[in-house]
């Protein structure tokens, strides 16, 4: 006998802390692009979000990306949309969510990058700080 399947859950008024962990370089695989789509949808739900870049994921937000020769869509401008979502959330008292954009320091430095190399404003955190932040989350989605 088949069990009944619920396709809607009551989440009215529930707010949680989401972290999106971006670990992969932007164009070698589809992870970065589809992870970005995941982040954008969470804004519509007014959830707290930390968008973290670690390992090769730090390359996703490097300035001046040009994908023409590779024939692929340059989705790096969309990170600017995330930055705008964050600014809106910070400034508009009617938007009840907090967004943070963070980069792990070792990942950045090991690749010869500084915060000035990124197209958006980020908080640079040590791995221990990032670990604490990760522990404080309700939902961690990683790709």
């Amino acid at each position, binding site marked *: 006998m*088949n*069990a*009944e*399947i*619920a*396709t809607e*859950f*009551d*989440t009215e008024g*529930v707010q*949680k802390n*989401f972290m999106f962990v971006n670990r992969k370089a932007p164009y070698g695989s*589809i*992870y970065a692009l*589809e992870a970005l*789509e*995941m982040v954008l*949808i*969470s804004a*519509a*739900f007014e*959830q707290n979000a930390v968008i973290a870049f670690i390992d090769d994921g730090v390359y996703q937000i490097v300035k001046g990306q040009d994908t023409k020769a590779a024939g692929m869509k340059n989705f790096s401008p969309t990170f600017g949309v995330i930055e705008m979502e964050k600014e809106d959330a910070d400034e508009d008292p009617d938007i009840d969510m907090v967004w943070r954009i963070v980069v792990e320091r070792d990942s950045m430095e090991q690749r010869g990058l500084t915060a000035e190399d990124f197209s958006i404003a980020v908080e640079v955190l040590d791995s221990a700080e990032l670990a604490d932040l990760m522990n404080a989350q*309700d*939902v*961690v*989605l*990683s*790709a």
Partner: protein
Amino acid sequence: MKFGVMVNEGPFTHQASDTAYRFTKAAVEGGHQVPRVFFYFDGVNNGNKLSEPQADDRNLVKLWGELAAAHGIDLVICVAAALRRGMKDEILAEGFRISGLGQLVELGLATDRTVVFGD
């Protein structure tokens, strides 16, 4: 406990789907709830009914559908990821449905833990 499960890799090419299936099965058989499994990235290929593994191997597409029917699990394929990969209603296996990424956020909100299986 209530678990939300996310599967980010396709069947057969990667262990993630097998491990997610076994986790989900163990959870529901152990008295926990898994109201929904959300399939994203290449994970959407888990819902392809045209998949035909060799007869002496496990058939993950079928296993997911059977587990869902037995325990009332909502198997959701992300529409954006599915369209990119040619996964459409016409080839959707029994027990699966196609919907939006909002279903993933909702799953995170409705469960105690979200467990991600991927690379």
